[in-house]
Each structure stands twice: as structure tokens, then as C-alpha cells.
């Protein structure tokens, strides 16, 4: 996200702690569908949308959640730099009503930077349920800022919020046109209080002020002085890049800073104590304000959450419940997807005949390209891939919405720590189930660069939405009896699929440990994870949004990837080089390697050509095997199994294909995302070869064992 708020429409930025409903407010303002979820770090990159209010257009910017203005992670740095240097017309600081005191700390910190703040106390409905009473007028008086109460999920308070923000922007603009900003502030608005620090610090600030004339003029003097005294490395860096203020280049300022630091040290304020006092000032003030504003009617307001946590994270129940939930989600996915899958297959089969007849007037190369290439790939994606995705994704989102994912991170952190990694990697791994590229971007929530890299490099070891329907299809064909969706059939399918997913998770742990003992040596850094309150998921919205958005996305991507891949296959199959077609040359070249891995040349080629999108791997295999032949049976999976058996597949081939589907190079989107996030081709290549190497080893082993002992 570029830092730029100067253009055209005035900008309103949404800031706040993680997981307080910023994205929900953003969505209801802009009508956009920024993905929301109940865990810290959902909005990692920031989003921008437009909103019409009061006869004009506003730009709304959703910043990543942050606990403080001092940035620890990449996403917090984005939020901090935006607030400091982008100069938005107004900032809405969103707070969680059920945890106001902690949220106020950030409000107070932002109040030091800009005065155009509207405080939004969100989740008032949740607070009411927990019998927490808030005196918002009093809060507004104590902060010296406008305060709006809201329950964003029910749509309450959004309009008032916009009114306040628009009013603030207007006011700022008028002041600026008068060019008497300082004077206007004194007369028009009551002076907004600021934090006070112990005397020696205040003294040092006032002694630094004369040296700051003309430097970074957009920032408040007092606050800038404090930051310079604090020597926050990440902030100084941003100051140099965003405001062209490099302290090293200003010898007088640097000398004064040295002097003040030594004076402070003499007064007992070494750099550590200095920072402690600066942070404590905000925390203590927040405590004082909260004491006057918040009243808990019940002493144990969060009793329900604690009871649930006793089970979800319990010593004996935590892990089994996690496994059971994972299996349950897969079971619902498998059973639920079966019916639409079957119905769609037979529908498409009818359509294909119709389409073939319709195209009979065209040249044969065109009709076979369209029917066998594009149409069949699409129908495969729609009938086999889409139904499980359309069920899995909302289920997963519901769990996410309810606040379950941070608990998974909590439960698994111990093992990640053992592997020298960060527990938050569980969150990015979970995101990987949806989409590995999203998971890789999500790794920004991990503070330590070393642990972040580990999470990025191992993300594609869990199968994304584009891969696990393939696993389901292969298991159905080769490892269940009669493809029946009887109780035992679906159960064994669920168990096998869950086992495969667990294998992926196990390899994530092992690879993480391997990396942190070799290339990314280091000790695990510290870890602090918030476990947010449980919330009832927004069933209606989650289901509509994820089914609709997901369907369009998957269809679009499949279309874009399938058409050219289909074209390539068709061309290869129809151009002769010497006595053979190019396709035969190509698959023949890959065949020895494929055979060693329990696969064949066609399967390997399909994986390679499937690089743009994993969804099209199986359709490519079908297309190549069936070049010329047509599928004649209405039951597509049965027909497919016959086709695969005819081409020499055994259960070993099926198993190896599944393993290689689980462990191979990430798709093109993920690969490029890794390059972008790590800013290095070397790490991107490692992320490419690491899962591939794992897959090849597994396939060689399975094939070897099968041939030695069983076949």
C-alpha cells in the first residue's frame, strides 16, 4: 500500500487494535468484501475503498491492526507510517467495548500524532451481553475527542461515525484555509489534552524543541521530540524515508540529542527506563480513564469465554477436539459436496453432447480444442473442485469468525517453539488451507524475520483449496469401496483425507525444524498472542459471501489457466516432430523420472503445466490420456477411473499422485507472492524446491517399498 493521502477525495483512515471490527466497519462503509475474521492480524496489507457521504466522495483506508505506534512487525509498521506520514483528513480509532482499557492506550498514542480523531467504541452489543456498562459522554470529555458508540456487525453507529469524521475533516479544512491553525485550535475547539511524562523527560523535550524548527513540519513538535529521544530505530528509518529527516545528517541535532541523553542518564533515565516511562504514561492514563468510564456489573464478565477455553485449550481435550473439528469439517465437505458434484457432472455430460453438436460446423481442430480442452477442464473444475471448496471455505470461515484459530495457534505453539518457529505460524498455515498465496502474505503477522521466513517457506506444505478436492477425488476413486457415500464410505474417506492433511502438517513441523537448524539458524524469539473473545459467527453473511466470492474467483482463475493450458496440450498432441507428436516426445522424456516416482510422464507433465493453477492438473491428465477418446459414461468418476486404469494406474500410482499433489512446487501466484514478500529469488526458489524435494523423496520411497514388498 502506497503512502499517499493527498489526492482528490479526503481520506478517512481506520485504525485500532487487531480484531476490533475495523474490517466490518470498512465493509459497511465501502460495500466491499474485505475478508473479516476473529483473529489478530486479519488485515495484513491494508485496503482502500470509497464511500459517498454528505454529497461527496471519501476514501476509506483500513489499516492493519496494531497495539501501539511503536512497530514490531511489518504490518504494524504499515499502520504506523500511514498515521504519521500520510496525513489523512480524519482517523477513526476503533475500540473494543469489552476490552476498552487496553484499546485506549492506542487512542492516547494516536492522539499525540493527530488531533483529527473520532473514537469509535465498537462491539457495544457484545459488551451489553457481558454486562459491561460504558459512560461514553464521560469518555469523550476525558479524552477531549468525539466518541461514537457502535455495533458495526448490526450496522448500528456507522452513520454517526461518518457524520463525526466528515465534520472533523471539514473543520480541519477551514482552519487550514484561514492559515491560522494554531490560533483556531485555541479558540474553536477545547484544547485536546496530551500525555504528560516525568519531569526530566518533559525537560529534555523542551530542550530539544528549538532544534526541530522546520524538520518534518507535519508532525507535532512535542511528539517528534519524544520519538527522537526514544531512538526507536524503525521510526527513525521511516522518518528518513518518508519525511526526509535524517538525524545523522544534522550534526547539531545529533549533538543536542547526545547531550540530553547523558543528562537523562544522570537523572536515572537510561534508554531502557526512558522507554518504560514513555510507554507507562499511556498505559496509566488509559487505566485512569477506563476506571471512570467502564463498569462491570458482573465481576466475571468473561466467564463464558473461560469455560469454552477450558475445553478448547484444555490439557486433555484441546488436541482431540482440534483433530475432531478438522475431521468434522472434512466430513461435512465430502458428504455435502457429493450431491452437487454428481448432479453437475450429469448436467455437463448432457451439455457436452449439445455443445459438440453445436460446433460440428466448425473446423475439427477448433471444436475439439473447445470441447476437449476448455470445456472439459472447466466442467471438471466446476463439478469436482468447486463443490468441496464452496463448502469447506465457509465452514472454515465460520470457525475463524468464532475465534477458534488463535486457540489453534495457542495449542500448537509449544510444538512450533520446539521447531524453532513461532506459534502464529499455525494461523498462516490455516490460511494456507484456503490459499497458499494468502497464507504467505499472512506471514507478515510474525515479528521475527527468521520465523517469518520459515513460515513463508513451509506454507505450501498444506494443501490449498485448489488441491484438496483433487485428493478427495483420487481417494474416492481408488481407496473407497464402490465410491459409495454410505456411512462407512464417507467415514473412511474422511479419515484418509484427514491423515493426508496431518501428514502435511507434520512435514510443516519437520521442515520448520530443519530450516531452523540449517539455513535459518537461531533461537525462537519471544511470543505474545492475544486470544480474542469468542463471538457468534455471522452465519448468513459468511455463507453468502464466501460461496459467492469464492465461486467467482475459482471460476475466473480456472478459465484463465485452463484455456491456454488446453491449447498447449492440444497443439503438442497435434504437431508432429519426426515420427511422434511433440506431446509424446515431452511425456516420453519425463516418463523415466515419473516411473521411478510411481507416476508416469503424463502425470508429471500435468503438474508442470498446472503451475499456473493446481486446479487444472487432473483435467490435463485426462486430456492427455484421452486425446481422441471420449468419455462415454455419465458417472464421470467411474469413467475417469476406467480411463486411468486403462493407462496403467494402480493404487501405487494413485497414492504417489496424491503425495505429489500434497508436496510439490507452489503454484505460480504463490511463487510470485513469495518472491515479493521475501524480496529474493533465492528464498522463492527454496520455497519452490523444498516441497518438491519432499514430494520426490516420498514418492521414490513409496514406489520402492511397493515394488520390493508388495507388488
Amino acid at each position, binding site marked *: 500500500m502506497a503512502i499517499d493521502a493527498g489526492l482528490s477525495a479526503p481520506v478517512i483512515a481506520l485504525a485500532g487494535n487487531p480484531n476490533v471490527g475495523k474490517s466490518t466497519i470498512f465493509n459497511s462503509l465501502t460495500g466491499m468484501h474485505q475478508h473479516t475474521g476473529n483473529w489478530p492480524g486479519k488485515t495484513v496489507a491494508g485496503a482502500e475503498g470509497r464511500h459517498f457521504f454528505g454529497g461527496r466522495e471519501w476514501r476509506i483506508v483500513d489499516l492493519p491492526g496494531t497495539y501501539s505506534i511503536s512497530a514490531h512487525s511489518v504490518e504494524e509498521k504499515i499502520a504506523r507510517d500511514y498515521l504519521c506520514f500520510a496525513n489523512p483528513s480524519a482517523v477513526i480509532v476503533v475500540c473494543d467495548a469489552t476490552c476498552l482499557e487496553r484499546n485506549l*492506550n492506542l487512542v492516547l498514542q494516536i492522539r499525540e500524532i493527530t488531533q483529527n480523531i473520532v473514537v469509535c467504541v465498537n462491539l457495544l452489543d457484545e459488551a451489553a451481553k457481558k454486562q459491561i456498562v460504558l459512560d461514553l459522554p464521560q469518555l469523550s470529555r476525558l479524552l477531549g475527542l468525539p466518541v461514537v458508540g457502535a455495533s458495526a456487525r448490526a450496522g448500528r453507529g456507522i452513520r454517526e461515525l461518518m457524520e463525526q469524521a466528515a465534520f472533523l475533516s471539514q473543520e480541519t479544512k477551514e482552519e487550514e484555509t484561514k492559515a491560522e491553525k494554531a490560533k483556531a485550535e485555541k479558540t474553536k475547539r477545547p484544547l485536546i489534552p496530551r500525555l504528560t511524562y516525568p519531569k526530566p523527560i518533559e525537560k529534555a523535550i523542551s530542550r530539544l524543541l528549538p532544534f526541530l524548527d522546520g524538520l518534518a513540519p507535519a508532525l507535532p513538535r512535542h511528539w517528534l521530540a519524544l520519538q527522537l529521544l526514544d531512538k526507536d530505530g524503525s521510526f527513525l528509518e521511516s522518518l528518513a524515508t518518508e519525511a526526509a529527516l535524517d538525524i545523522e545528517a544534522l550534526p547539531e541535532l545529533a549533538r543536542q540529542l547526545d547531550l540530553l541523553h547523558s543528562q537523562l542518564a544522570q537523572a536515572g533515565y537510561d534508554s531502557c527506563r526512558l522507554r518504560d516511562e514513555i510507554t*507507562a504514561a499511556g*498505559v496509566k492514563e488509559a487505566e485512569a480513564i477506563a476506571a471512570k468510564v467502564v463498569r462491570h456489573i458482573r465481576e466475571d464478565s468473561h466467564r463464558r469465554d473461560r469455560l469454552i*477455553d477450558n475445553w478448547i485449550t484444555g490439557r486433555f481435550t484441546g488436541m482431540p477436539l482440534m483433530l475432531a473439528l478438522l475431521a468434522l469439517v472434512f466430513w461435512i465437505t465430502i458428504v455435502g459436496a457429493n450431491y452437487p458434484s454428481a448432479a453437475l457432472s450429469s448436467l455437463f455430460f448432457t451439455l457436452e453432447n449439445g455443445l459438440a453438436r453445436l460446433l460440428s460446423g466448425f473446423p475439427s481442430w477448433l471444436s475439439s480444442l473447445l470441447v476437449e480442452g476448455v470445456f472439459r477442464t472447466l466442467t471438471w473444475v466446476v463439478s469436482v473442485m468447486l463443490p468441496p471448496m464452496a463448502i469447506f471455505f465457509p465452514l472454515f470461515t465460520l470457525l475463524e469468525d468464532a475465534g477458534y484459530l488463535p486457540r489453534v495457534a495457542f*495449542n500448537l*505453539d509449544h510444538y512450533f517453539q520446539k521447531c524453532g518457529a513461532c506459534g502464529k505460524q499455525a494461523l498462516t498455515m490455516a490460511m494456507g488451507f484456503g490459499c497458499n498465496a494468502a497464507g504467505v502474505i499472512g506471514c507478515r503477522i510474525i*515479528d521475527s524475520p527468521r520465523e517469518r521466513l520459515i513460515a513463508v517457506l513451509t506454507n505450501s506444505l498444506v494443501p490449498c483449496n485448489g488441491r484438496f478436492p483433487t485428493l478427495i477425488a483420487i481417494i474416492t476413486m481408488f481407496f473407497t469401496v464402490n465410491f459409495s457415500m454410505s456411512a462407512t464410505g464417507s467415514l473412511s474417506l474422511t479419515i484418509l483425507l484427514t491423515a493426508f492433511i496431518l501428514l502435511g502438517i507434520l512435514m510443516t513441523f519437520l521442515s520448520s525444524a530443519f530450516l531452523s537448524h540449517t539455513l535459518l539458524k537461531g533461537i525462537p524469539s*519471544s*511470543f*505474545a498472542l492475544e486470544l480474542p473473545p469468542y463471538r457468534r459467527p455471522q452465519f448468513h453473511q459468511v455463507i453468502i459471501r464466501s460461496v459467492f466470492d469464492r465461486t467467482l474467483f475459482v471460476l475466473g482463475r480456472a478459465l484463465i489457466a485452463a484455456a491456454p493450458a488446453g491449447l498447449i496440450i492440444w497443439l503438442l498432441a497435434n504437431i508432429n516432430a519426426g515420427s511422434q507428436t511433440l506431446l509424446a516426445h515431452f511425456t516420453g522424456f519425463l516418463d523415466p523420472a515419473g516411473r521411478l516416482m510411481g507416476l508416469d510422464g503424463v502425470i508429471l507433465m500435468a503438474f508442470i503445466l498446472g503451475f499456473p493453477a493446481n486446479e487444472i492438473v487432473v483435467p490435463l491428465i485426462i486430456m492427455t490420456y484421452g486425446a481422441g477418446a471420449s468419455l462415454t459414461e455419465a458417472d464421470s468418476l467411474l469413467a475417469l477411473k476406467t480411463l486411468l486404469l486403462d493407462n496403467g494406474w494402480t493404487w501405487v500410482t494413485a497414492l504417489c499422485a496424491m503425495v505429489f499433489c500434497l508436496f510439490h512446487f507452489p503454484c505460480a501466484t504463490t511463487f510470485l507472492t513469495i518472491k515479493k514478500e521475501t524480496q529474493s529469488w533465492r528464498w522463492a526458489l527454496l520455497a519452490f524446491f523444498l516441497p518438491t524435494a519432499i514430494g520426490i523423496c516420498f514418492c521414490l520411497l513409496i514406489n520402492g517399498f511397493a515394488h520390493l514388498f508388495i507388488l
Partner: protein
Amino acid sequence: MDNHIENQITQLSRLLPGSRGLVRSSALQGSMRRRLQDLGLVEGTLVRCLHQGPSGDPMAYDIRGAVIALRKEDAQHILIEREARPWQ
């Protein structure tokens, strides 16, 4: 009751689920020190230990109304004054 035993200074990591303590000092360094302070864990903060993870580590603490999970590795660097229990 002997207050010397009850009001002893100990590591945060030794706080058992259900018990509370006042933060006295932190030996954490750098970014983790600041991170926990930003979460409200400054001197004089009352912290309650809520529950432990399935493998005993990390632990979940109530810090100013929010639930924060910390590893033993980190929590042992924070010294607290254990609260005397009224029933003891």
C-alpha cells in the same frame, strides 16, 4: 497468616491458573519488553493466570481485560508479587 510467604516475589511463569500477581519488574529486553508494555504489562499491573495450553506451555493470562498467551520462556523474565489469597 504469614504474609512473607504469601507476598513472595516470584516469576510470572510460576503463577498457577486461577491466581493473581502484581508486576514488579521485567528483565525482558528490546522489542518483547516494549511489546508486553504496549499490551499493558507495566509495573504495578495486576495479572491473573487463566489456563495453560495442552502441553503446559504457553500459558494464558488476563492482562487488563484481554487474554494474552505467553511462553514460559518469556514469562519467567517477569517478576511478580503473588497475591495473598483471602482464604488461606
